[in-house]
């Protein structure tokens, strides 16, 4: 039982919330907020206790120290999102849907946990679907807003398409190897044409989930339409979980055709980083802006995967952790400002520092961390990613990625310019954010500042990672 600790704990609190949901009248739903956060915090803390690695269901489910770490990282992210979303959930139009938000989010998290722990493609697929479908409901959470509904529909359609493609690939893998178990599939991957085709379908399906170019077209619209807290969830947790399992499957199942997927990744990385950056340059809406910036960031994460060494996997996990804190910091600020004023454009942020200095500082730190400016955690993450890729000799790729960091610095600076440099006749008025938002942002800032200096975090991830070379 202890082997499935993370999932079981999450299921327990989901069930508790479901039962409470039934008995709580609509006017009282707000009372659920604090217990939900506390339960999530308890789960997060419990997740860090040393667990027992093991295998369940005849190998369909496997738990290792690494998967436990990955689940803990996701738990932290979800906890921060829970805390950050309180201000939004307390609004009038959400008052009868509060518990649904938690239940939906927790079920996707459970799905991701199963996905990460999967030992065969069937389990992987079930986890993936469980992780995807509730998110579409979440994206359409602001059901009175046309854009939110549009986001939900777009997400469900693209997810269905990508799942179909992925499933088609998986069926070919089953057809050529006769098994779904990772451990059995791996030695039978020979690089036969059908298997290559299968792999490409699998790759395309995953690329949809991670929103890599050219499979990214849904991202900006969905991110813009969905409520901010759901967007941050999509851009951080969903993406992080997909990257984790993608790395694991590439390293444990498809390692025999590493040469092939390295070439494929090479092209995809170039496209993802460059296109993501170039589109981010033109955005005015901050949610769309962060959407494209997160596409580019996903491209950077792939640099670690292409590194394919123990160092490479470490940097993937490490950067994902850093990225969770940085991106949630940025989204937290965008969220609270959007809740209080309804303003989401970069122009609206003109002169923000003069009226809301603390929020501007958090935003600045988060964006600098995303841009990879020392001494913030993002710098360390990016540096290690480049090192991992360079270790395999991808110097040209690293150079192009480096040039792209300059492009990304430009658009991050545009936001900082609006907040600190520009003056405005009608700046966003000074407001006091609530305690939850402050705690949430403070957690992000702590992560951004501390993770880089505390090398033990990196060393711990390293000790659990593995690679091909």
């Amino acid at each position, binding site marked *: 039982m202890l082997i499935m600790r993370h999932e079981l704990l999450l299921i327990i609190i989901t069930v508790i919330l479901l039962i409470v949901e039934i008995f709580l009248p609509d006017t009282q739903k707000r009372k659920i907020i604090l217990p939900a956060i506390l339960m999530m915090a308890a789960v997060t803390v419990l997740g860090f206790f040393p667990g027992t690695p093991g295998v369940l269901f005849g190998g369909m489910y496997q738990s290792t120290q690494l998967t436990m770490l990955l689940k803990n990282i996701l738990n932290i992210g979800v906890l921060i999102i829970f805390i950050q979303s309180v201000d939004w959930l307390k609004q009038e139009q959400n008052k009868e849907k509060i518990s649904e938000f938690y239940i939906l989010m927790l079920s996707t998290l459970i799905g991701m946990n199963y996905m990460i722990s999967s030992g065969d493609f069937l389990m992987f697929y079930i986890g993936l679907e469980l992780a995807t479908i509730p998110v579409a409901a979440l994206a359409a959470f602001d059901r009175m807003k046309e854009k939110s509904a549009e986001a939900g529909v777009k997400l469900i359609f693209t997810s269905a398409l990508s799942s179909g493609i992925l499933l088609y690939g998986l069926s070919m893998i089953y057809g050529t190897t006769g098994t779904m178990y990772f451990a059995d599939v791996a030695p039978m991957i020979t690089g036969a044409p059908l298997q290559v085709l299968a792999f490409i379908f699998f790759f395309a399906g995953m690329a949809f989930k991670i929103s890599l170019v050219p499979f990214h077209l849904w991202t900006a619209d969905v991110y813009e339409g969905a409520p901010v807290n759901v967007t941050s969830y999509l851009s951080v947790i969903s993406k992080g979980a997909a990257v984790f399992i993608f790395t694991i499957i590439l390293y444990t199942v498809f390692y025999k055709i590493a040469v092939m997927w390295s070439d494929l990744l090479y092209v995809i990385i170039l496209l993802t980083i460059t296109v993501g950056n170039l589109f981010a340059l033109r955005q005015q809406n901050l949610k769309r802006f962060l959407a494209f910036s997160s596409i580019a960031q996903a491209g950077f994460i792939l640099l670690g995967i292409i590194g394919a060494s123990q160092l490479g996997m470490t940097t993937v996990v490490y950067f994902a952790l850093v990225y969770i804190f940085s991106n949630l910091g940025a989204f937290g600020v965008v969220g609270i400002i959007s809740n209080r004023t309804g303003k989401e454009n970069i122009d609206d942020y003109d002169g923000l520092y003069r009226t809301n200095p603390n929020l501007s500082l958090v935003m600045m730190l988060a964006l*600098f961390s995303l841009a990879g400016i020392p001494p913030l955690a993002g710098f360390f993450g990016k540096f290690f990613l480049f090192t991992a890729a360079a270790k395999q000799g991808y110097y040209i790729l690293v150079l192009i990625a480096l040039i792209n960091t300059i492009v990304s610095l430009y658009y991050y600076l545009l936001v900082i310019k609006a907040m600190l440099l520009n003056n405005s006749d009608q700046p966003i008025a000074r407001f006091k954010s609530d305690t939850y938002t402050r705690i949430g942002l403070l957690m992000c800032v702590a992560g951004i500042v501390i993770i880089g200096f505390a090398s033990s975090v990196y060393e711990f991830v390293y000790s659990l990672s593995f690679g091909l070379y």
Partner: protein
Amino acid sequence: MSILTLFIIIPTLTMIGILFSKSHMQVKWVSVVGMSLQLLSAIALILLYLAERRAGNMAEVLFVQDNVWYETLNIHFYIGVDGVSVAMIGLTALVVFAGIFASWNIEDLSREFFISLILLATGVFGFFICLDLFTMFLFYELAVIPMYLLIGIWGSGPRHYSAMKLTLMLMGGSAFILLGIIGIYMYSAPGGGPLTFDLIRISKQTIPIDVQRFLFPFLFVGFGVLGAMFPFHTWSPDGHASAPTAVSMLHAGVLMKLGGYGCYRVAVFLLPEAAHQLGWIFLILATIGVIYGALGAIWQKDLKYINAYSSVSHCALVLFAILMFNQTAMNGAILQMISHGIMTALFFALIGMIYGRTHTRYINEMGGLMKVMPFLAVAYVIAGLASLGLPGFSGFVAEMTIFVGAFQNADTFHRVATIIAASSIVVTAVYVLRVVGVLLLGKIKNEHFEDLPDARWYDKVSVIALIFGITLIGMAPLWLSDMINGGLGPIMHKLLVAVPVLN
């Protein structure tokens, strides 16, 4: 704990102190106290260093402290200094100290201003004391990024444009440096063993020549951007012109030296063979930069632009001297960095003070300032004379050493380059004397200027500290040049081993 950690701890504590300061006045005094302590520890460091050397301690670097940071990647917090870095630390402390007083009039968001300024200084100090490429790079970027806010918020003119241009160009340079550093790291242990970022250990290895040839241009151009190497200098005039006084001082005085120092310490020191093979390309660029900067300065009418172009010329001379690959010229390069650092900081401080009074920087709108503000005018003349290399000031010592060293290369190519570069001295005299003539002498063109005040006490502190530096080096250069010479041993040794022809 090594004395060098003070150079990180003091500014950090100062920044925390500023953060909790209540009033505008308190912010300034906390900064003054912090940076005075910093200057004192820099002087103490110089004295301690000289004492150690006199006592016969011949270690390559002194005051070493080595802490493991990232174990698996072999990243260390490894600090230590040789004669060159001690000299650079002294320069930085002096300029930062003067810069605090030069920004006494900052009223708007003063807390943020001084924090950014000291953050920049922390980056510079960190860069000079670190011997681990990773931490060096970390501090390098740390020094660059506050410039964006400093110019963008407190600057003048097209400050948004200048700040963005400067930041992007410098960060572009640092992207090149990053690639170079990672490349060096990958080849840091050709004989097997763990890879390392340790500069001293890497310098004992020989990196394969193909790799060197690939990496050297990245590193040299990357650092060269910050060192205002032609044609990557374009951020510098715009940036300086828009920056507030203290930022111009720090930037031209110290930050641009990071470029020269990086070229010397990383690019040439670690990749000597490639430096020798490819040096001629950059030597041509540096020579063009020397003469181009000087000619550019003649054409300008804005005081800050004049000085910015003159900085391009002087900083190009640093790269020029480094690429001569002999001890005398290298020594000259370091001397030039220090001399130009103090001198240009003085220039920018004076320009800021004059601009603060006249509200114009166009020289043909001013005149006869000698009568109105004699103290500032005399200081300007001193800075100008130092800039054109008058004996008795630091500029003469540095340029003399450079050209004597450069002339030791007997082949035609180097000779021609040297002659062209040396002719810039004449051009420098033209623009310096023209400015002095138009700006300070003659009739007062605008009657509003007649009752402008002369320097206040804080202006005087700043100016006198810098003039003291210039004359000290000018009158008694030997201790400094000996100290630098002591630091040049390893790099010269490495160059001679790599390229025996240089003998």
